[in-house]
């Protein structure tokens, strides 16, 4: 299968970025160094090409109902210009993906599935629309959109240098149209780094003009991953995976996206989980011994396996090795000591409250 390339592919290659495969796309992993890019976002600002994220537009009289019945949160609460984080669950309440749903200023909806999930999401929406006989149009616009994130304490200054109007009045989890160097862009105050910042959605043909106009550090998926992990954000497919590691939102620590008052696929299963409580929950780990915990490493207590690391890295901001792992709830209290098996050697680790870092 050939890789999908973002509209900025040639620009990144010319900039000397190291490329990697992610979710079926060929994306920049590093422009300078992960540490340099990471620090720029924590201390100033960085820009990310996230055009591998999907864009599905849902419109028509039953658009809200269709979205509401396929995601865990209350979509009917969204006013034009609002954004909402939600999970997409199956009948068992297991997460297929997580997503942000934007109600665009003109009233219709655009949601952003993760890289490689757009085609499945599109099909899922159409199938259920037909089964439920709802009146809604579902369009997969992934190929025609570019998405660029500007993140960091200086993000609004960087963006305002390229726009016709202020952006600071756009509040967190809101979105509005702005003219960005002549390009009509939906500017949302959302992100995946734990910093203030914006995500811009606009016509793929204008990607180069917008990217070039944002005067800050270009960042790749490498620093995007270290930043999101410090902020305790989940990576779809890695921290939960409906096939290899099925998890519900309560286990994944995002129970706040579940509104049991709404009717959606997986609702009844999640109501039962909510009633009974979970056996395992995601926990943050900080290594006390020297070493780095990585995806797939075993977590043990007194030599008995109790879980597995889903994500792990050396935190550039904290200077410590951090990780996420699902553990039996009795081990998830911050301060609890466990061991992580790093290449067969037990390394002591301590359960740490999430997020690891907050601004």
């Amino acid at each position, binding site marked *: 299968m050939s890789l999908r390339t973002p509209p900025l592919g040639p620009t990144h290659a010319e900039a000397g970025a190291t490329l990697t495969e992610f979710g079926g796309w060929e994306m920049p992993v590093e422009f300078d*160094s*992960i540490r340099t890019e990471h620090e720029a976002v924590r201390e100033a600002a960085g820009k990310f090409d996230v055009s591998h994220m999907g864009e599905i537009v849902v419109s028509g009289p039953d658009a809200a109902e269709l979205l509401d019945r396929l995601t865990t949160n209350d979509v009917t609460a969204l006013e034009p210009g609002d954004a909402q984080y939600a999970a997409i669950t199956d009948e068992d309440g297991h997460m297929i993906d997580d997503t942000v749903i934007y109600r665009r200023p003109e009233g219709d909806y655009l949601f952003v599935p993760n890289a490689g999930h757009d085609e499945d999401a599109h099909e899922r929406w159409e199938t259920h629309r037909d089964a439920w006989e709802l009146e809604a149009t579902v369009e997969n616009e992934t190929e025609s959109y570019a998405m660029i994130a500007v993140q960091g304490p200086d993000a609004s200054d960087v963006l305002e240098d390229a726009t016709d109007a202020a952006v600071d009045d756009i509040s967190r989890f809101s979105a509005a149209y702005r003219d960005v160097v002549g390009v009509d862009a939906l500017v949302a105050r959302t992100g995946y780094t734990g910093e203030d910042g914006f995500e811009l959605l606009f016509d793929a043909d204008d990607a180069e003009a917008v990217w070039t106009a944002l005067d800050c550090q270009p960042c790749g998926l*490498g620093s995007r991953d270290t930043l999101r992990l410090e902020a305790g954000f989940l990576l779809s497919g890695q921290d939960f995976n409906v096939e290899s590691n099925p998890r519900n939102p309560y286990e994944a620590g995002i129970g706040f996206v579940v509104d049991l008052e709404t009717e959606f696929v997986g609702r009844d299963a999640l109501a039962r989980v909510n009633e009974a409580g979970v056996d395992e929950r995601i926990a943050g780990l900080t290594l006390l011994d*020297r070493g*780095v915990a990585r995806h797939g490493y075993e977590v043990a207590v007194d030599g008995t396996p109790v879980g597995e690391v889903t994500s792990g890295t*050396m935190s*550039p901001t904290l200077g410590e090795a951090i990780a996420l792992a699902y553990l039996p709830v009795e081990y998830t209290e911050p301060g609890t000591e466990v061991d992580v098996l790093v290449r067969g050697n037990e390394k002591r680790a301590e359960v740490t409250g999430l997020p690891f870092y907050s601004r």
Partner: protein
Amino acid sequence: MSFEIPNDCRYMETHEWARRDGDTVRVGITDFAQDELGDVVFVELPSVGDDVEHEAEFGVVESIKAVSDIYAPVSGTVTAVNEALFDAPELVNEDPFGDGWMIDIELSDEGELDVLLAPEEYESQIA
């Protein structure tokens, strides 16, 4: 991009360098290797007195994004370990052929050095 490939070293296909000084061989990873790895955050090395074996793994170098085994260019006993790397693993990025060295090995078989790559051979390998 061009990488530093000092003439006083010999090289392995797995990107380690070996620099002989009398009966001692100093070992590290190359400029190319550190660039491929990116920010080095952790180095696991043997202890002084341990024996290492030609072409066998003797340690691990980890960057933020990757884990990589390091292989011994020659067999012998470890006579020194660069403990500075435990607190400052970034030295591997900053000065791979100098302060970023990893271990010294007491040479036991000179012939093992001969099978390593000459600088120009290594250069064409990474070209």
